[in-house]
């Protein structure tokens, strides 16, 4: 009797364990599929492209097939790599300046309503100017070389940093501020204890956007006013009607862009884990 009950419960337990294990397996395979999804999508995209070009007989001057582009990548691997590094270097230099400048200006804007009211319209106006239009001016002033690229990367990328840092500071919950002020906290105390930590998730969030923009900026400047960099490589390729190389350069840009974005996203996760786990409104 008792033994029977035991064996029944043992069977039920084994069944429950099997169900649990199956669920765990299903979860693991779902996670694997999720990991594979970006690769599958990318490969699918290129296959579709290849097929479309072949079926419709598109001329390689209009749109080269991925296999043409691959050939170009193999043939020009060294210039592509060299100029990619140059572009990366320009982008990083401009981006670092933008971080310093953006942080300082963002803190000033968030801390003082006067500065905010005065400077913000100016910033919006400056941001609205297409930076392509500024490159010739930079060339006149600094000549062809690395400086226009770095400056363009800087100019195009500091705006989101400024806005985000200022927003983080300006949206301190009034109740937190009340608690601290009723303790006799000075403005600087509130900035340091609440404002700055609070704006960090905004800051790191803005870096993803800013680095992508800096990259666009350096490529634009290289295209117009440089002897190096992917932008310049593209300018030369298009002058030679070397369309596969042009596309190979675009692919290089895309790959590099994904890489720097991923680095920034990783940095954001590392630095502001609390914001994501507390569902902080950033």
């Amino acid at each position: 009797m008792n033994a029977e009950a035991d064996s029944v419960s043992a069977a039920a337990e084994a069944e429950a364990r099997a169900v649990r294990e199956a669920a765990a397996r299903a979860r693991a395979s779902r996670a694997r599929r999720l990991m594979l999804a970006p690769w599958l999508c990318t490969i699918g995209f290129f296959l579709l492209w290849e097929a479309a070009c072949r079926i419709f007989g598109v001329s390689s001057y209009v749109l080269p097939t991925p296999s043409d582009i691959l050939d170009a990548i193999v043939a020009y691997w060294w210039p592509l790599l060299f100029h990619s590094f140059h572009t990366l270097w320009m982008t990083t230099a401009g981006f670092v300046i933008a971080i310093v400048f953006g942080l300082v200006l963002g803190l000033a804007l968030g801390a003082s309503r006067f500065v905010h009211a005065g400077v913000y319209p100016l910033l919006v106006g400056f941001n609205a100017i297409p930076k392509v239009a500024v490159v010739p001016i930079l060339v006149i002033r600094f000549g062809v070389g690395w400086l226009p690229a770095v400056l363009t990367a800087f100019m195009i990328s500091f705006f989101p940093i400024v806005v985000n840092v200022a927003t983080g500071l300006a949206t301190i919950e009034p109740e937190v501020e009340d608690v601290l002020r009723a303790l006799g906290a000075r403005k600087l105390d509130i900035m340091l204890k609440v404002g700055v930590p609070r704006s960090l998730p905004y800051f790191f969030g803005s870096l993803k956007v800013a680095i992508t923009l800096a990259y666009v900026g350096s490529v634009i400047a290289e295209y117009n006013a440089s002897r190096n960099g992917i932008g310049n490589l593209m300018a030369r390729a298009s002058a030679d009607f070397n369309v596969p190389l042009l596309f190979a350069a675009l692919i290089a840009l895309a790959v590099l862009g994904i890489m720097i974005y991923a680095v920034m996203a990783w940095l954001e996760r590392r630095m502001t884990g609390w914001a994501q786990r507390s569902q902080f409104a950033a």
Partner: protein
Amino acid sequence: MNAFVALKDVTHAYGSGDGFPAVEHLSLSIAEGEFAAVVGPSGCGKSTLMKLATGLQFPRAGTILVGGAPVTEPVRIAGMAFQNPTLLPWRTTLENLLLPLEIVEPHRSRLKRERAAYVSRAEQLLAKVGLAGQGGKYPWELSGGMQQRASLCRALIHEPRLLLLDEPFGALDAFTREELWCVIRDLHAERRMTVVLVTHDLREAVFLADRIFCMSARPGRVVAERVVDFPRPRDLEITYTKAFIDIVHELRGHIADARKTA
């Protein structure tokens, strides 16, 4: 009466000053060590009263005295807690508790040297509100009730002479709320600080307070003042006695009148 907090004929309007006032001809006084409660219809200016009493807002007319001196800047001696716990999510609960000590003198200059002593003080306070050993957790790892307890501790850590509570238990379930009533009751009995509690819960007001102010609808002023003289320490059981229920009823009448005239 020797008033610790006194408002005399205070009128205050938000904004540029030509707006409709939030409170008008508001007068009240609270003795040192007294537990006062403020009740009234929503939007009548209870939170405004708190901001005025702490110097976070300055009145358009009238005078405000705290500790015998006129309030001309934020008071520096007040602990505050609100309906939202407002803990900082990047600090652990313990670090959140230490925040007031990083600001208020003389703790501010001592904190670095005597950190261990202050930490043990914070831990004792946490234990008192039933959060023993939870100091290392982040606020978002605590339940709403636990966060509210922590927020209460933060308001108390620097041993303020004036404690201001703005609907601190509004978002909690009935059992947790009653438990926290007892926590507040015991802390007040132990430290004898002056407490001003804003609440919508009349039972809460009657159970905790020595003196209850009923406010009119906006613009707010005091329409009734009721002294509650149940002996202390009070037990939760008194909330079921006839005398207690009568007072709750009476206050309810005042609030209903205030709402009707609005």
